[in-house]
């Protein structure tokens, strides 16, 4: 902006990113979603969705023990997660109002419709696997649960990133991969916990793939310019994220090393489950912390605005087109 004489107002010259605020009060509202309900759902939804995916492929490969355990785990997790979602509403009795519209612009709407299809499919798949009845229905339900499960495990990234919460929104490129990796490690951990050494081999491989994905996604996310890394590294969120990483590496190492030892495999599986849960709680708390501090809202906006102004100056000065990348 410019004054009447074209000169920049003095405050522009002296302004530092995040320096100005209204008595340090937040600009955006902190998300009203509660803990443990919401981060718990992020964890349970990931566990359920990825378990259904693992179950379908394990079954196709002839590993019925792992498939059965994963299907049972998936339906339990999504049941608990669904309850957490409903009780986190301000008016739980009106939950069904979600089913009066379908909106692509609302990840929560997409998620509710995903769950509406996924829940029954996962339940049918588990029931058929446990009772051994209706194998064709079971196979169809497994396939449907796996297909929808990929969405259930990952849409939650869009759910939290499609907000004005700085630590979430700015991380929207990497969050889906972080959540997919975290979901995979949780599902693998459950498989390792619930099956014997022979059946859990595929789960252990899934654990290593998931852990690698999660680590790469998290590090890429925190190093991307514009993503506020500090809320993920400091305070309670930072503690949880660090604990999650330690458990993740320990669990993945255990998955590689467990071999034929059932206790070792189960212990590694527990570590992976705990790691996935802690990651979700850490991400959740980091978002809340970033919303409380106005500098995380104002800083990136000022940087983008200044970059756009620089680009304008460049256009005027050199005659070359330099569109600001936002």
């Amino acid at each position, binding site marked *: 902006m410019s*004054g009447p004489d074209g*000169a920049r107002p003095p*405050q522009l010259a002296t302004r530092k990113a995040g320096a*100005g605020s*209204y008595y340090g*009060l*937040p*600009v955006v*509202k902190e*998300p*009203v979603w509660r803990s443990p309900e919401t981060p718990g759902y992020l964890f349970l939804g990931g566990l359920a*969705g*990825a378990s259904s*995916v693992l179950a379908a*492929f394990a079954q196709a490969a002839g590993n019925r023990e792992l498939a059965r355990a994963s299907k049972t785990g998936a339906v339990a997790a999504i049941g608990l997660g669904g309850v957490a979602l409903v009780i986190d*509403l*301000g008016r*739980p009795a*009106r939950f069904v*109002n*979600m089913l009066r*519209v379908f*909106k*692509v*612009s*609302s*990840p*929560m709407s997409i998620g509710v419709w995903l769950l509406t299809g996924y829940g029954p499919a996962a339940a049918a798949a588990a029931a058929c696997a446990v009772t051994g009845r209706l194998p064709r229905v079971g196979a169809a339900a497994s396939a449907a649960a796996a297909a929808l499960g990929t969405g259930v*495990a*990952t*849409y939650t*990234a*869009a759910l939290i*990133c*499609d*907000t*004005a*919460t700085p630590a979430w*929104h700015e991380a*929207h490129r990497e*969050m*889906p*991969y972080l*959540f997919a990796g975290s*979901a995979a490690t949780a599902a693998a951990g459950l498989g390792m916990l619930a099956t014997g050494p*022979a*059946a859990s081999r*595929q*789960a252990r*491989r*899934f654990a290593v793939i998931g852990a690698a*994905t999660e680590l790469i996604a998290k590090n890429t996310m925190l190093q991307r310019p514009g993503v506020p890394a500090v809320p993920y590294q400091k305070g309670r969120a930072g503690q949880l994220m660090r604990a999650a990483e330690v458990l993740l590496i320990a669990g993945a190492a255990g998955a590689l090393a467990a071999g034929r030892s059932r206790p070792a495999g189960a212990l590694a599986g527990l570590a992976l489950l705990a790691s996935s849960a802690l990651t979700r709680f850490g991400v959740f708390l980091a978002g809340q912390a970033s919303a409380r501090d106005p500098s995380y809202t104002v800083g990136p*906006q*000022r940087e*983008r*605005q200044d970059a*756009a*102004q620089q680009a*304008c100056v460049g256009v005027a000065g050199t005659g070359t087109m330099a569109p*600001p990348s936002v």
Partner: protein
Amino acid sequence: MSTGTTTTSEQPDPAAGIDPAFQAGYTDHPQRLGFFTDTSVCIGCKACEVACKEWNAVPEDGLLLTGMSYDNTGSLSASTWRHVAFIEQIGRPGELAGADGARWLMSSDVCKHCTEAACLDVCPTGALMRTEFGTVVVQDDVCNGCGYCVAACPFGVIARSDADGGAHKCTLCYDRLGDGQTPACAKACPTESIQFGPLDELRERAQQRVTDLHDQGVAGAQLYLEDPADGIGGAGAFFLLLDEPEVYGLPPAPVVTTRDLPRMWRHVAAAAAGLALGALAACLGGTERTP
């Protein structure tokens, strides 16, 4: 893409921006109505806060002293739909400074009724809706209190009430508009700091006012959220500020979060496909058959 800078260009204003009421399906609708809050004449009397509470029967939210300034309201909330900010700038050679080199900035904040409204986009029940006047209102009998709008609003306007669990915010007095009346806050404002009317007229008036202020030497005067090319498509309720937006607790260059949603969905789809591939890779090569 401009992100809400107020940089002026040589070209004439390209367009008045998109017509949100038309987009929402009102093919034949009244003029878009809004607020122009000219903070340069705000005296901080809070008549707007009181009139809003009285007309809309919004509950009181604690008679407490914040201790930070004459602002004892703090922020917009489920039970505060107009909020007067007080900024005390001491020892600063501002253009409105008194003899002691200090100045007070006062500004009555309100829902911006964005052209591209994040709260409306993310609402999973359809409780938030666009009116024929281009404003955004919550249908309280539909809202299930999911809280998504609260996290999505780039201004921290809408909030969830602990009392009834629903989300609430300014309606731009939808009930009064239908009757051809002025919203309560604008009606009560004694200095015409809050101006109400068709958005086109307000934008013209605001341009004139900011030019006049610049001519008077008030270099810091700037319009905020008036530009249809900004990150929210321009606001239905915009402002004339005397300092940077963040000084008033406003985001300097907000962008509606749903502009990035198509990219988010693409990454989600890739991550979902990756999850399936990961499971496939884990299960390839087989294992001993198990019962």
